[in-house]
């Protein structure tokens, strides 16, 4: 039987983290291929519903990358994201999903290394947690 | 004197102890020197208050513990009231005294006091001095 390979949806803001991911590429830094990227203008575009939809569709982890505090291209979008993520994490727990499956990280356009390391660590973590439970399923460990 | 700066010494346990007892972050200091400028007794100190902060940032705690400075400080709070970074410098001085006092090291030995003026001394003076300086 094949080892479990997690599926991860990554939402990256166009200005910082997407550019950071590009830099990881031009620097040829290797990381696992489990995460697939959806590019948004700003991390604040990501609706909690999208995250819930991803979990419902079987995403084992969801990653959100935004600009560092104070660097948001749209001034305060990343703060809004942070607030939404914090709230959503509490709701996930109630839904039986380990909130650790949702990760928000500030990664700038110059942090290719950080992007790769984040992907390595997050993939490993999710791999250890096992598949996401079906929403409405039993308690998640 | 030579200060050997190294990663182990900076933020060592003694620095943490001073920070714990005083409730202050010695790394807030940017060395403007205002604490020393306003200090009424700095002329009697061997290390000025701003240097106490600087040495603490290097982890050179022993030098301060053995200094005259911490006993000369009379907690008038002029330094604390004017620090632009809000550091309560007097509390840091108190922390250094406290570390010594808890080891039994002090500078007032009640049995060896000069008793010439004893009758004139107000009670608050004796109690103060013993509380701050008797180990």
């Amino acid at each position: 039987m094949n080892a479990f390979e997690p599926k991860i949806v990554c939402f990256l803001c166009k200005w910082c983290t997407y550019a950071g991911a590009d830099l990881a590429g031009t620097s040829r830094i290797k990381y696992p291929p489990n995460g697939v990227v959806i590019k948004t203008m700003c991390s604040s575009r990501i609706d909690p519903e999208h995250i819930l939809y991803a979990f419902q569709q079987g995403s084992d982890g969801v990653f959100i990358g935004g600009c560092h505090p104070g660097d948001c291209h749209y001034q305060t979008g990343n703060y809004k994201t942070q607030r939404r993520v914090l709230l959503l994490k509490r709701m996930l727990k109630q839904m039986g999903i380990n909130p650790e499956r949702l990760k928000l990280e500030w990664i700038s356009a110059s942090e290719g290394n950080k992007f790769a390391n984040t992907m390595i660590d997050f993939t490993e973590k999710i791999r250890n947690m096992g598949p996401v439970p079906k929403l409405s399923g039993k308690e998640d460990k | 004197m030579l200060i050997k700066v190294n990663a182990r010494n900076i933020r060592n346990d003694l620095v943490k102890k001073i920070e714990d007892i005083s409730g202050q972050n010695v790394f807030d200091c940017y060395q403007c020197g205002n604490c020393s400028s306003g200090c009424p007794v700095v002329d009697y100190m061997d290390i000025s208050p701003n240097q106490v902060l600087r040495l603490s940032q290097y982890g050179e705690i022993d030098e301060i513990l053995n200094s005259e400075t911490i006993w000369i400080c009379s907690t008038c709070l002029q330094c604390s009231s004017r620090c632009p970074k809000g550091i309560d410098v007097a509390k840091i001085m108190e922390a250094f005294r406290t570390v010594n006092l808890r080891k039994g090291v002090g500078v007032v030995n009640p049995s060896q006091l000069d008793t010439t003026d004893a009758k004139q001394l107000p009670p608050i003076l004796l109690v103060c001095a013993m509380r701050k300086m008797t180990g």
Partner: protein
Amino acid sequence: MNLPYYPGCTLKANARHFEDSAQKALAKLDCELEEMKDWVCCGTVFSMTTDDLMLQLASIRNLLRAENQGLKEIIVLCSMCYNTLKRSQDFITRDQENLDKVNKFMYMENLKYSGSIEIYHLLTILKDRITYDKIKEKVKTPLKKLKVGAFYGCLLVRPEEFAIDDFESPTIIENLLDVLGAESIDFPYKLECCGAYQTLTKQEVSIKRSYEILKSAHNSGCEAIITSCPLCAYNLDFLQKRIEEDFVEFVKLPVFYFTELMALALGEKWSGEWSKLHHVDPEQLLRDKHLI
């Protein structure tokens, strides 16, 4: 008006004239200091460590007893007691856990301290409760042409959150002096440290500090200075004979408690008993100004 009162040790010893003059002055204002029962030493200095509750005990014990005696507040004359009690009260009521621990230490007291006592310095009461207007009405012997410097020292104005007035440029005592008919003199060293308890171990520090304060007052035209701190009073008054030995050009200045001048202005007779507790003769100046 009855004022619940905490005296502290020194007002029963070297500073008896402080207490006596305060009582007499307040009587002229139809007020009475009512001494609380079973008070003990306040601890004299506030411990500035975060982790040493034992050093707060002396202060809190007084507050607990005051509370048990049904008091809501205590009025303090001595700057040191004021500062120590006020800061201990703040320290202990910021954190319920600390308050609980201190109460456990004081199990002998039977009752617990809830943290309700307010602490005031007499100067604040004079200004806010009795009011300067009322005092002005009652002045019988205006202290005409008496040039007095108000010496605040450290403990009335620092730390800022417990200051009885603006911590860099207070005027509460000057305003009182003006009400009493005296000429208040603002001098640069009025907020400086007198050397405090260094007198015991390094008297040269206190001598130098007191010299600088007195010189600054003299250079600004003061004929006397007033204080509300028995330790400042000791250093500034008693040490003048030592200062004279070290600094030839030094000019002596009498040092009063503010209550002494207040009593005088309100029509109380100057007491020879008070003079005995002074080290620099206070009477000559008062005679020169035809106040006694």
